């Protein structure tokens, strides 16, 4: 079987969660007997000489870069000649299944192009984001930053100040484009349910965890908590959505109250200019008041992660948006590190309260401070029933099952078209 995996960005230059998942799945599939894999990554600028020229990578499968970019909203090809580049790859690879990871950059028209180019070949699409549903960067937060749970052309027009004609047309376009997809995969039930609310048929969606090559630790000795407080880490982008300010505020409140609840907070990752001065100012203000508990460690690599995780009692995921299926949660659980997270969305699903970690009220430093106080009073943070993330081989098998189902669906569609 030949599988064409499509990644919305090239992991080598943009190592996000969806890209990592696509690559890990490609690696896992390539290790299966009888499966040939090509990983095609969308990239805005590819020199003509490099277009549709696959190379064999160190993991034993082919990779190819494809010139592709989309607008924001319709996720439609910015240049219709991108179709020619994708078509070249499809005819070269002659896949038995095409698995798209995301539509952004890739183009929502690609499933239709697969139908026209290779009519019997099933198309599977993993939905990594809510961009199709929400024009606020797919965060499902309204213009006031409040959590949003429903979209409609009228509501979205108000939220992003687009004409309703445009939000209606956009939604119509994306929905229609999705009709050429045989089966959708979501990394969490939460993502599935949001897309089903939006109109996807639940029968066309399978929930399969992201494939991730995780550095695992089978056991972790239950360690007594130090008397002077918890050792915590925040690992992620410093954006308003990730709630770093909520965490810093909670730690600061605890510190100012004189309670020794947090010994240290290590902050990894960095920020993004696009979130503007207001957020940076807020973080700067919190840093100015902070007196030695919090340390900013900057960027980290995948190789650094096991050491980071092994050195803390828990990580905190304080996002103020829903999240889909945060990779950092899987990474922490793989190292047997409990997760303290907001009580909503993909976080609440992946971290069961009291089993894999603990929940606090989203966006509330007070709630987080109270939880941390409670936890620091314990003798340890041991959670014996903590979930073990699926092995890549299991995730690969679930995808193979999904490919089989997609193929049967495609066959039925081709038959009915006749």
């Amino acid at each position, binding site marked *: 079987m030949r599988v064409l995996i499509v990644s919305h960005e090239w992991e080598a230059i943009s190592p996000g969660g969806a890209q990592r998942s696509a690559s890990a799945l490609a690696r896992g599939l390539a290790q299966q007997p009888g499966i040939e894999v090509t990983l095609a990554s969308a990239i805005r600028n590819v020199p003509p000489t490099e277009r549709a020229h696959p190379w064999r990578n160190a993991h034993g499968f082919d990779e190819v870069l494809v010139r592709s970019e989309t607008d924001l909203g319709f996720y*439609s090809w910015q240049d*219709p*000649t991108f*179709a*020619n580049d994708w*078509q070249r790859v499809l005819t070269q690879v002659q896949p038995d299944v095409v698995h798209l990871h995301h539509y952004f950059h890739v183009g929502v*028209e690609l499933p*239709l*192009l697969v139908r*026209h180019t290779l009519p019997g070949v099933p198309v599977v699409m993993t939905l990594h984001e809510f961009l199709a549903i929400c024009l606020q960067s797919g965060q499902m937060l309204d213009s006031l930053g409040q959590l949003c749970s429903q979209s*409609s*052309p*009228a509501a979205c027009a108000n939220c992003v100040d687009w*004409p*309703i*004609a*445009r*939000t*209606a*047309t956009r939604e*119509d*376009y994306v929905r*229609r*484009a999705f*009709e*050429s997809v045989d089966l959708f995969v979501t990394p969490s039930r939460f993502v599935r349910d949001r897309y089903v609310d939006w109109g996807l048929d639940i029968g066309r969606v399978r929930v399969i965890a992201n494939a991730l090559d995780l550095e695992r630790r089978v056991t972790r000795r239950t360690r007594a908590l130090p008397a002077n407080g918890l050792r915590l880490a925040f690992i992620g982008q410093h954006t308003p959505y990730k709630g770093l300010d909520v965490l810093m505020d909670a730690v600061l409140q605890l510190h100012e109250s004189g309670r020794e609840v947090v010994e240290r907070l290590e902050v990894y990752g960095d920020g993004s200019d696009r979130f503007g001065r207001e957020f940076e100012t807020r973080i700067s203000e919190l840093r100015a008041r902070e007196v030695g508990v919090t340390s900013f460690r900057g960027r980290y690599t995948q190789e650094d992660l096991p050491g980071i995780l092994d050195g803390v009692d828990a990580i905190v995921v304080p996002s103020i948006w829903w999240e889909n299926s945060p990779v950092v949660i899987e990474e922490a659980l793989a190292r047997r590190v409990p997760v303290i997270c907001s009580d909503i969305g993909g976080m609440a699903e992946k971290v069961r309260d009291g089993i894999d970690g603990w929940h606090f009220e989203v966006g509330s430093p007070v709630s987080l401070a109270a939880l941390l106080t409670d936890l620091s009073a314990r003798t340890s943070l041991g959670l014996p029933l903590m979930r073990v993330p699926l092995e890549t081989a299991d995730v690969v098998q679930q995808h193979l099952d999904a490919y089989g189902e997609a193929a049967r669906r495609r066959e039925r569609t081709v038959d009915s*078209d006749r």
Partner: protein
Amino acid sequence: MATIRGRLRRAFGAATASGPEVASDSAPAPATQVDAAWILVDGSLCIDGWLADDVPGGPVDVRLIGSENGTWRPLLRKARPDVAEVLGLRAPDGSVAYGFVGHVDGSVEPGRPVTIEFRVGEATWEWRVSALADGVVPESVFSGLVLGAKALTPTGLAPIVDVIRQAPRPPAPQHRVVYEAFVGGPVPWLSVVVPLYGDFEYLRNLLLAISTDPVVGVELVLVSDDPALTPRLLAWLESWNDATFLLPLRLLAHDRNAGFAAACNTGWSAARGEKILLLNSDVLTNRPDTDLRTMAECLDDGCAAVAPVLLYPDGTVQHAGMLVEGSVDFPGFELPAHPGKHELPRDLGSAPRGVEMLSGAVLMTTATALKAVGGVPVVFGKGDFEDVLLSVSLREHGALVVHPGVVWTHVEGASYRREDHGGVPVTLAKSVVIGEQLGAAG
């Protein structure tokens, strides 16, 4: 927030105007402005503008006297204060302005100044106005708004009605096929005719819809009624349809902008299918295959034309049948009305139901019927009421029905706009002429 006046000015552009200049009196000139001026299809000039209430020499007795180029036939009303407020029709000193619209009969050359004289009390002033050369827009939206809706009466609009009555019918446009793809198959059972003007940003939704939910035996006939649009549209089709949508499609291009009806007629005349779907490009279909076959069954059952229920993007009804009735907003005028408009769709039933008239936004009929009624009526060159007249004609050949099982959405973003054809006064004036025609036809 921009005033309506400001928006209109941007939309239409402004004529060049200078003045007023004192002609026979030394009194200071009142605050005035000419907003727009156009040369009409018959060569006469249309002007609209405003002048302040609080002028020297009052009480105000404004009269527009005449023009060196011919008879000046003005409509002049003082804007109601509330209307003036909305429109930003206040002079710098805060006084409420007068609005006016008028015609200068006789021949006017584009760009050549025309002198308009007016009098307030004992003083007279002159304007020098240079009309734009577009030559196609007879009256402005602004004029209607300035006059205020309540002030628009059949009598008040008599000068415009006269112009419309006497306006010569423009010759039919020439067209050529500029794009043709995947059309070599058997004769289609349905031709989808899409007139395009100004923009085509919603067209990709239609093409994606039909490509995703393929309807076997359907062709698309696009008609560009806009020479400025044709090259862009052609390039777009060559890249999108050739590689991605792969639809049997032709693009016919008019040599000049001839209007919605003319574009429809060019399209269905060139269509190969017996069944014809006249479709605005800004209508979002639902399930093209099922829906088109459902509507086609109505024609097979003997109906003359069938249309879907059209919703606004907010989910309320835009069209579920149409009739002409006395207007509440414009007393004295008979205008098309859409029962249930802006209401949530309910009680529509599931079976096709007869209606008096169908909207021109989308309707399915047959080439035979269109041939029998002489096509879509070309109403005064361009503009409103084609669907009213077409409905009346088609009714002679069978029932007109709306099928509530077919629900589409009209985003109304790229249809021919009323503003392109002279605005509210012209629409109302046309309704008078249409009423005369329908009355004469019994």
